[in-house]
């Protein structure tokens, strides 16, 4: 896999080498990537810098659904799949995303614009069912609202 062209060295220099910084480093590098992911090359550089074994880093990035080691779209749609959202109709909402975008959960649209994902509780139970699209929150969703939401993203 080719490198995602993020200036990892510059980002790493902002942090001391202790392991406690790992989550922030991972977020920052992922956010700097145009494709919303942390490439294998970056993983190695982070491992070198933090002295954390590479396998541990992959353990962390695969544990948290927010992180990805695979290329994703410009916008990542995260559909909460926790109980409150599920009870209030998350499945119908996600099916609506699937129909509108023409991709399955876990896939990216051909134009590289959207990636559709499930994720663990977003903490937005008060406005369930909810999705996050990159940093934006959309709550109290109904399947028919999906088309307009997608249209907002260029």
């Amino acid at each position, binding site marked *: 896999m080719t490198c995602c062209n993020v200036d990892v060295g510059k980002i790493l220099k902002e942090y001391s080498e202790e392991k406690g910084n790992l989550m922030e480093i991972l977020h920052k590098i992922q956010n700097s990537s145009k494709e919303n992911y942390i490439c294998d090359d970056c*993983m*190695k550089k982070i491992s*070198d810098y933090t002295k954390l*074994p*590479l*396998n*541990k880093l*992959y*353990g962390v990035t695969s*544990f948290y659904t927010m992180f990805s080691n695979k290329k994703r779209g410009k916008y990542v749609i995260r559909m909460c799949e926790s109980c409150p959202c599920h009870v209030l109709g998350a499945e119908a909402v996600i099916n609506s995303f699937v129909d509108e975008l023409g991709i399955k959960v876990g896939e990216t649209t051909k134009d590289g614009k959207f990636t559709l994902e499930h994720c663990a509780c977003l903490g937005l139970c008060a406005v369930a069912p909810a999705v996050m699209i990159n940093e934006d929150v959309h709550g109290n969703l109904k399947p028919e609202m999906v088309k307009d939401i997608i249209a907002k993203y260029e």
Partner: protein
Amino acid sequence: MKNINITIDGKEYQVPENYTILEACKQAGIEIPVLCYHPDLRPEGSCRLCVVEIEGMRTFQPSCAYPVNEGMKVKTNTKEVRDARKMALELILSRHPQDCLVCERNNSCELQKLAAEFNMTDIYFSNELPAFKTEDESGVIVREHQKCINCGRCVRACQEVQSVNALEFFNRGYEKLVLPTGNKKLHETTCTYCGQCITVCPTGALHERDETDMVWNWIEDPNIHVVVQTAPAIRVSIGEEMGMEPGYLSTEKLVGSLRKLGFDKVFDTDFAADLTIIEEGHELLHRLKNNGTLPMITSCSPGWIKFMETFYSDLIPNVSSCKSPQQMFGALAKTYYVEKAQIDASKVKVVSIMPCTAKKYECNRPEMKDSGYQDVDVVLTTRELAKMIKIAGINFAEIKGEKYDAPLGISTGAAAIFGASGGVMEAALRTVYEVVTNTELENIDLKMVRGMEGVKEATVAVGNLDVKVAITNGLSNARKILDKIRAGEADYHFIEIMCCPGGCIGGGGQPRPTSPDKRKARMDAIYCEDCNMELRKSHKNPAIDTLYKEFLKEPLGEKSHHLLHTKYTKRDSNV
């Protein structure tokens, strides 16, 4: 250590305050079922099979991870506890294949044994199997991942015992699984093929690649001359795999069985171990005399060698250039032996019986072809040999003992102890002392270098020189000494490093399940073998004498360098 009072199932006991509930129960004679717990590893408490009821606690607690405290009241055998354990086991079994009859671990599987003990005649949950492909690209370690129960023992062995970090949990919840780094194949990672993951795996999810078919075919073929060598640690473990008690010393039964299996010559890696001492001893003396790189580190353990090439390649100059005894044997079998026996080397196959999975990797290293052929053709583990003995219908308990063939089967007690941590050091010191001082070493039992401790240090007076030595077993322990060398804080002359806990007696190819007690029994047996031998110093081995006279001429000579020494390769540590 202070004792505390604890009540288990209504009876009072006194146990050391640092015990877990599981250990207290064991002392009280109560067996608690376990799966993720292993005596060699840090307790994790994830399988929930060992849960107990503790008075005053809202929920059941895993006894393997829960420390005892004063006045604690524990119940291990209530209906609720039994039901909770059964449910945990049913959930595990609901994702485990049930084709036990055709599994590598049939009859030696810990999960199968528990299912029997729980009288599991029916499983409430439907059987849902994740679709995983068997991975055997490394040619050494096979991962049948569909049989994995996520107990995490392999992960802890790889990370904590060996500090190799080739395995880790990926994903979470229902999708959680063990994978090599970055979802690559094992051979693309830092894996050293030590096989410690195999020795702790409770199921058939991890095992060595079975290569017995190839050996059977060679034995059957009248045109092939099949030579077998047995590592020092096999004689103290093959009996265990054949149903005898751990530490059963069965050197002569082993030889008898191998001859009955049809090997043309039954030789001993111990011969090559004696030779290693001569070469390595002289290499050490050469370094001491000529201001060579010190400390010198042993090179017998192929898992350690790959670890060193991966994580400590800057220390390559410190590592002895001697091949391991198995590879020295292979190179000599296809040169010296064939010349003596007047056999065509191309018709000879060398089979090694090793306590080790990394030896399978070692014999296939591209540089191990100095005889003009692949020096060692195939390596079988203790477990694979036991399979051959069983299928051949050999009654191991009853078989008559026999002796190794000459000349590559003649050895000393110094070679036998190569199988235990500290053994190579002791054997080397016995020889170096006498070579340097020209006087006889009176007490040859150098007990200060023996034992199971992870790191041992000693100073031995050899003539005018106080030789400082260190011995480690288990790769995380090796790191402690290696980091000292790197930091310039070590003033050792000679260091012995063995990859596996306790040395080769705890190797990745040894009988399962393993435990500190079993390794201790094997270690005791190996020193017993040494005691029983007439010759106990490598330089007194008459066959080695003859070998130098007839063939090699001198230690570290031209022929030795060509056949018995090797080079190492720097490898990437960040893969």
